[in-house]
């Protein structure tokens, strides 16, 4: 009961926020809404028993990645070119095509989804799954884990390289 209430509450907030994020005019507002969105999504994760993932979502996604967005907006102050460009009619046609495609596709998907049997569902919510996740990550996922560090390294290096001040002898 409580779970259902919480879920539908969070889901409706998330739906509204998701739509708002992509439709508002100002990037700052969008980022702020996205923060809320991610925060409430963490709530959904918690509802699903993924406490650790929920916290990670808050720490990294809401607490770090979106700070980055915020900073970029602050640095660039890009509200000057906010007007939407492009051929309205063409955009509308494509928009409806994609939307219809998604709708159609989702119907098909739910139609074809094999229903979960009772045995599939493990209803017990794992308590203290931090430990379990840790074990699994460090034992079964060693290589992805080490590769993740490489990915981070790559991220650091390329971000610094890209955002460096453009040098004087630019070719183009």
């Amino acid at each position, binding site marked *: 009961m409580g779970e259902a209430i919480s879920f539908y509450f969070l889901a409706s907030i998330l739906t509204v926020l998701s739509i708002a994020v992509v439709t508002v005019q100002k990037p700052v507002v969008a980022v702020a809404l996205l923060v809320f969105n991610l925060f409430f999504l963490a709530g959904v994760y918690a509802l699903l028993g993924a406490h650790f993932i929920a916290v990670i979502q808050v720490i990294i996604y809401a607490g770090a990645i979106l700070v980055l967005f915020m900073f970029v907006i602050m640095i660039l102050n890009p509200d000057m070119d906010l007007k939407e460009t*492009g051929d309205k009619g063409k955009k509308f046609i*494509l928009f409806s*095509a*994609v939307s219809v*495609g*998604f709708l*159609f*596709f989702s119907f*098909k*998907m739910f139609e*074809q989804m094999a229903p979960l049997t009772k045995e599939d569902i493990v209803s017990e919510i794992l308590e203290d799954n931090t430990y379990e996740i840790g074990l699994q990550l460090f034992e079964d996922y060693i290589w992805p884990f080490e590769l993740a560090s490489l990915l981070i390294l790559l991220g650091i290096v390329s971000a610094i390289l890209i955002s460096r001040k453009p040098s004087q002898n630019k070719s183009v």
Partner: protein
Amino acid sequence: MNWLEMTLCFPLLGAILNGLILRSESKTLAQIVSVTACFLAFFSALFLSYDVLTHHEGLKVYHLASWIEAGSLSVPFSFLIDPLSSLMLLIITGIGSLIHIYAGGYMSHEKTTYRFFAYLNLFVFMMLLLVTGENFLIMFIGWEGVGLCSYLLISYWFEEDKNAKAGMKAFLVNRIGDIGFLFAVFLTFKQFGTLSFLDLKNILLNSHTLTQEMQNSIALICLLMLVAACGKSAQLPLYVWLPDAMAGPTPVSALIHAATMVTAGVYMMTRLSFFYFLAPQIMTVVAVLGCLTAFFAATIALVQNDIKKVLAYSTVSQLGYMVMGCGVGGFGAGVFHLLTHACFKALLFLGAGSVIFAMHHKQDMMEMGGLKKYLPKTHAVFLLGVLAIIGVPGFSGFFSKDEILWKAFNYPVIGPYLWAFGTLTAGCTAFYMLRLYTLTFCGENRSDHHTKKHIEETPVIMWGPLAVLAFLSVFIGFVGVPAVIGDLVGIPNFFEHYLEPVIKMPHAAEENWHFLRDHHSHALEWTLMGTSTSFVLLGALLGFNFYKRGPKGISLILKKKFSRTHKFLTNKYYVDEFYENIFVTPLQEMSQFLWKIFDLIFINGFINGVGRGLMISSALSSWKNSGGLQTYAVFFVLGCLVFLGFFLK
């Protein structure tokens, strides 16, 4: 990590370290890396061989990973260590290490050497792949790899057009052989369904009768493999690249074009001996081809003036011996000669390298002479090398060459002729080697004043390896003393027993090769040995006497007298020109013709037409290539949806 992996990975590691990672300006660092890599490989190979030969009954297959798995074709990365391959491993890494050390001295005038050493290490790695591969494809990787390294090293000083062309020539000529190899591989797979040497060996050794079709295809495989061996081991029609390959640095000539790579053909034939035994007619071809090559190359070597060219033709000639040895069924003898030749020819090349180094990269013997007193150490070891190659009794070359000649004599029908040519060749060899020696080291120095002033003995890093090789050249022959002598002095023939497990005669072939088992009288063998030795001594004497006063004197008279023959020989029987006229020029002309007809009119027309058509149609459709990122993305997403919808039905 087992010994095999270590053996293989050290040279590769050295190559990667030198060529890709360090790229060091420091010559010392580059050399240390590559010498260390090679030495480590040598020691690993030593342990590996010891391990396999003592603990695994001389045969072990290392299965590292699976590689190609397609239907019935299964080619794993597996490696075979048996007496033959461990012998090759030791030759390659051992002599390779010495040459690596030597190269440091020889290349000391270069600006950077990391590229050179990286290539050398890569070569060693490829060569190791070639000799340890358990199936045709691994061997083929090595086969192509050594070809590549050879190309890279021949044209190491690629700034000069000549060197680049020489590399190209080696590469292209080798391609002809490689085609043979590839077709042989295809045919093998078609016929036997496997590419593994051991499997093939088991199949063939245990079958008592073979169908006609099987026999034909075996003969064809052998023939194709012979083509491959001709390319790599510089046999008669395809030998032309080897003399030109001398354009590379001398250590390269020593390592690749004398000691190791060019012997790959002999190695391969020995590895496939069970095939060759089943194709006696092809064996005859092999024997004749080897014999002719040996003689032919020796005659050319008689008159060459470039010190490295002489050695190159000598190499071709010695390879001819080896191939002849294989052809008459004496694979063991061929490999034995391979071993001794690797030692003394490496020694000779490196010695020649020292001479060239001391003479400031002059290679013409006519400008040398009298180096005995300038380069005493080099002279001493070089002399030992000369004695070894011409086959003075007691030196290593004597035993191996004699073994081959004896095996050749026993060959039915054409055997005596082979022997006669072989003996003649031995005489020629003695002549031209003594000629080389005399012209280089004896008499007066003929170089110009400036050069003469700067001749000095090479550093220890260069003559040290030479000393080791000289030791080997003199004594390595005692591992395979022929039975007749061995019985006399009480030294058994280790080598024959050593290779016995590798060279097995299929049951189906035994009747054709009964003469190998026949007993021959010792007296006959002594007689033949005596004859050939006297030929050698005669040749040596002539060579020494003709040239002991330099290029003038008797040799000049002879040259005048037989001027046409001399010219013919100096121009190497006009083989290069022959090829040029018969193959290259017509090919070029035909290409020109085809280019004019097909390329310009048909193909260009077609392609331009297509292009024009596309231009028109793309102009029509370029509205959708707006360059707009998101427009593309939209179509991408729509495409994905259609695709998914297709699967979800």
